[in-house]
């Protein structure tokens, strides 16, 4: 059965409160932009899932079509596309990222590490 890449992407975005499509992994980011995004997300104290698109060429192209966004990394919160590295840096600098995740995790029992 052919792989339904768009459904796969949709499902994993829906399943994870915060998901980042990146090059490499949080502990071994393979690109400066992916590393910067991991730093910003870690700074919020909330857990996040990741997909290493270097290990999945089909998903690497699929995710670009999925959000009409030509670059990696890509960040999703509560099933919604938030942006790439530039936008995430802006959100982090303005404090909006923290507020966004506070809201996303509110009432889910998981709190930011103090």
């Amino acid at each position, binding site marked *: 059965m052919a792989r339904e890449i768009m459904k796969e992407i949709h499902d994993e975005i829906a399943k994870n409160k915060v998901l980042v499509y990146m090059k490499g992994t949080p502990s071994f980011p393979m690109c400066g932009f992916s590393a910067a995004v991991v730093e910003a997300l870690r700074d919020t104290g909330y857990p996040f899932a990741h997909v290493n698109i270097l290990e999945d060429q089909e998903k690497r192209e699929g995710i670009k079509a999925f959000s*009409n*966004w*030509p*670059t990696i990394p890509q960040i999703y919160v509560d099933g919604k596309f*938030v*942006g790439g*590295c*530039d*936008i995430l840096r*802006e959100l982090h600098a303005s404090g909006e990222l923290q507020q966004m995740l506070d809201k996303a995790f509110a009432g889910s029992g998981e709190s930011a590490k103090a």
Partner: protein
Amino acid sequence: MTTTEIEALIRDGMPGSRVEVIDEVGDGNHFRAVVVSPGFAGKGRVERHQMVYAALKGAMADRIHALSIQTYTPEEGERA
């Protein structure tokens, strides 16, 4: 690609916009684009960036490795 080529693409794709592209690292691969356009009014960050990407007509896929984008309306531009 060169900064002038990228500036031209964005200007053609977004008439009425002011564009400045800088080669941040000097390697013809890592660019920063500052785009001021009335077309950004009322649009969020993601939508604004997608407008710039659309103007680049696929150049992001293979000809531009990294492009950092800053978007402003003319009013925001004055305050930046």
